[in-house]
């Protein structure tokens, strides 16, 4: 299978500049610097690269919304979102550990494309080791004169899940409480310090060296229509071989599962969360589903950040839903009411069901609450609160009903 990001992961010293350079490193940047910013953006647009942090927004199109310097003069920034916090996702951690120069090169390409002279890498607070590795790589790049076109600064998060959301991340960088902003204006128009800012995920930017080196068309050819290149899944849960797997966009769910060695021996597949805990689960019947942003959306869930969690029949849907809601309750930023109160309430209801004290009204109540939260909150975390409250009981009603002693939910 074609690999882009993890192609050279067998090289033990890939994180060092010398090795990275030997393996075609920084050639994409060299190429980009010979092109005009507009041409770089056009190339990325051609590649069908989608934002791999979860939203799947076409990267070239995002860059295109940054007002050009002759219209809005002054600084503009690229911010790398390395605040990977979605439970089940750890692909950025591996990318940062193994190939920091790939990210730095991608970041310099993106900075050239939008005319940024200063850019930032925002690393999750808990990723101390990765921070050290990137810091070291950055020093190598600085010493080699690679960051002449754009200086890169490192920043660390303070441990909030919500900071992984682009606008909350910008608030954090400005030293404020990590409360998501409500666009408009979008960050590309008014982002960090109200200046035009592109926030891209580690994986997204790491794709850029390949795109510039080999051309956007070559990248687009690897994936499925409108979904260029590859995607890295971090597979965990009840599989034989947990780990990160890079597959072309549009591969089948079955293929990824096979790469991970399938469901652990002697057990049966119950559910697959495709992109991290925030997504509605898929069932065994969905195994032939194509994994790209558009197809998976049509199936009612999301590719997210590729944090695939596989569950076998030993998992209990009430426990899973409760676990996720507990996480969301803990991480809800508290800005908007439906999320702040809804996460708390649904966790409490699920806990009551777990304790065997559920009532017949609980399931319809969760559904009603979920419907009234999703789409009526400020950010995606809030949407998730509603999604979890609804979907797990819809997909696994028997798990819920057997825990509700008196009366069946209507």
């Amino acid at each position, binding site marked *: 299978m074609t690999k882009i990001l993890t192609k050279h992961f067998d090289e033990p010293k890939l994180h060092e500049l010398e090795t990275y350079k030997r393996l075609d490193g920084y050639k994409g940047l060299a190429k980009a610097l010979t092109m005009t910013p507009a041409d770089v953006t056009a190339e990325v647009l051609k590649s069908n690269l989608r934002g791999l942090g979860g939203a799947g927004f076409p990267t070239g199109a995002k860059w295109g919304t940054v007002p050009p310097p002759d219209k809005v003069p002054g600084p503009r920034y690229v911010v790398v979102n390395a605040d990977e916090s979605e439970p089940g996702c750890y692909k950025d951690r591996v990318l940062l550990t193994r190939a920091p120069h790939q990210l730095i090169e991608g970041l310099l390409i993106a900075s050239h494309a939008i005319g940024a002279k200063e850019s930032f890498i925002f690393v999750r607070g808990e990723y101390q080791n990765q921070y050290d590795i990137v810091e070291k790589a950055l020093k190598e790049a600085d010493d080699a004169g690679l960051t002449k076109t754009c200086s890169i600064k490192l920043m660390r998060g303070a441990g909030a899940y919500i900071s992984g959301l682009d606008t909350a991340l910008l608030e954090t960088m400005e030293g404020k409480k990590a409360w998501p902003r409500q666009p408009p204006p979008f960050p590309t128009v008014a982002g960090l310090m109200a200046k035009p800012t592109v926030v891209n995920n580690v994986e997204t930017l790491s794709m850029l060296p390949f795109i510039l080196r080999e051309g956007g068309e070559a990248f687009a050819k690897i994936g499925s229509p409108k979904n260029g290149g590859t995607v890295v899944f971090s597979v965990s849960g009840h599989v034989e071989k947990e780990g990160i797997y890079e597959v072309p966009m549009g591969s089948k769910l079955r293929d990824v599962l096979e790469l991970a060695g399938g469901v652990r021996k002697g057990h049966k597949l119950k559910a697959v969360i495709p992109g991290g805990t925030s997504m509605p689960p898929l069932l065994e019947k969905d195994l032939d589903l194509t994994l790209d942003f558009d197809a998976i959306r049509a199936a009612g869930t999301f590719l997210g950040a590729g944090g695939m969690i596989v569950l076998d029949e030993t998992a209990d849907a009430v426990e899973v839903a409760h676990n996720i809601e507990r996480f969301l309750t803990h991480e*809800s930023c508290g800005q908007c*009411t*439906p999320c702040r*109160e809804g996460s708390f309430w649904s966790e409490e209801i699920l806990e009551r069901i777990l304790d065997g004290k559920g009532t017949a009204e609980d399931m319809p109540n969760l559904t009603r609450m979920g419907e*009234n939260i999703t789409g*009526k909150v400020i950010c995606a975390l809030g949407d998730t609160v509603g999604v979890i409250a609804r979907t797990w009981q819809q997909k696994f009603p028997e798990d819920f009903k057997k825990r509700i002693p008196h009366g069946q939910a209507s």
Partner: protein
Amino acid sequence: MAKRVKFKLNGTELEADEGRLVIDAAKDAGVEIPHYCYHPALGNPGNCRMCVVEVAGAPKPLVSCRTGVREGMDVKSNSDAIKRAQASALELHLVNHPLDCPVCDQSGECGLQDYYMKIGKYQSQVREDKQHKGKRIEAGPHVMLDQERCILCTRCTRFVDNVTKTGELGIFGRGHEERIEVTPGMTLDNAYSGNVVDICPVGALTDRDFRYKVRVWYLDKTDSVCPGCSRGCSISVHTNTIRPWHNDGKRVARLKPRLNPEVNGYWICDDGRYGFGNLDADRLGRVLQVSPAKKDVSWETAAQAIAEKFKDGVAIATSGMLSNEDWASLKNAFPKASLYFTAEPDQVGVEDELLRKRDKVPNLKGAENLGLKSGSFNDLEKDLEAGKIKNLYVIERDLTKVWGAERAKALLRKAEFTVFQGPNKGELGDFCHYRLPATAYVEEEGHFTNFAGVVQHYKKALDPIGSARPDWEIFDLLHMAMKGVPA
């Protein structure tokens, strides 16, 4: 001029300035969209999610406090889906709300109660225990904070951040444990702290002065003007006459700001808000001859006696507390009297950029507009000392504050004949020959002209005490008596 555009609200064709917030445009058309966090003077964080509306073409409901009107927009604020969403948002606001309405001071003017009756009326599904947070936190000298009742709309923190720029309140914690707290090391004691009580849509911030005094539904509200300084903020006087045994027997329960974009916007200062103590205490209600012997007299008898003296000339010490009507009547009655009414030395104070003005009386401008000139209190002191002043007429001015109590008493004794007039007795009420009860500003109606020349009408909120009369009426009475016109 903004472009006018046509849009539809619940099927009705309307017109508004392009970009005007849907919530405001709807209000203009008489449609109130429920909301907590939005406040015209404090911005629209869009965190309460109550004001969601359907906009044709939008994939999901939009918050009307962050959506501008566009040409051809089709907005629905009353569809079934929106009603459900709003009721659900309200329900979520109440998940951790203690529902202690019977002992909550906000009852009767609470956003949660109002919207429950308007858009809620559902059967509660909450079987869970509620979150517990701080219940009685003294945020400052005037404000009590109850974190459990708080719905975290952030109006108060935005007020201290953006209006007073003092930052005494902040949002602490995260998620359902989030709460408003007083910033460590601070107290909520800025000069405008009482306003956070007004903008709080629920019972989280209550007025320590007003708490537990009287239920709000017993209050009558009258438009008035604050006499605390020359800004002349528009206020509403809340009076308690229906249950006179409540509120410790006091008739004025509280003062609230009244929206006036030209003068004070939405706010008033704490000096004005809490400075009404003397409206119910130490009041004069009887017309009295004090010296040589204390006895009740009729207005007519007093007027005759006073006119007899004042005919020979009088020095008048008064203040900018007088209304335009009072000033006109005073000028008419005593065209030749020497007047002393400067704010100096005792009626001046702190001025700031927000509202407070240096002159702590409402209507010096009214006197100025009539061409009245004031001598200085220094000169008055000298003249009294030298025995040059035979007749002295003290109106609504506390001379103990001008000269100090002992000095003022000594000076008053130097005058041959002194008349004291005002709503309150004060320390000098017995150092005169006649004492005339005047109405307080809440017991009369009139006009104040503020420092910028804005003339405002204040209405009568309460009946006068005893036989007190407005100052202008007393001046007219004396005028007639001096002219020999029978009363």
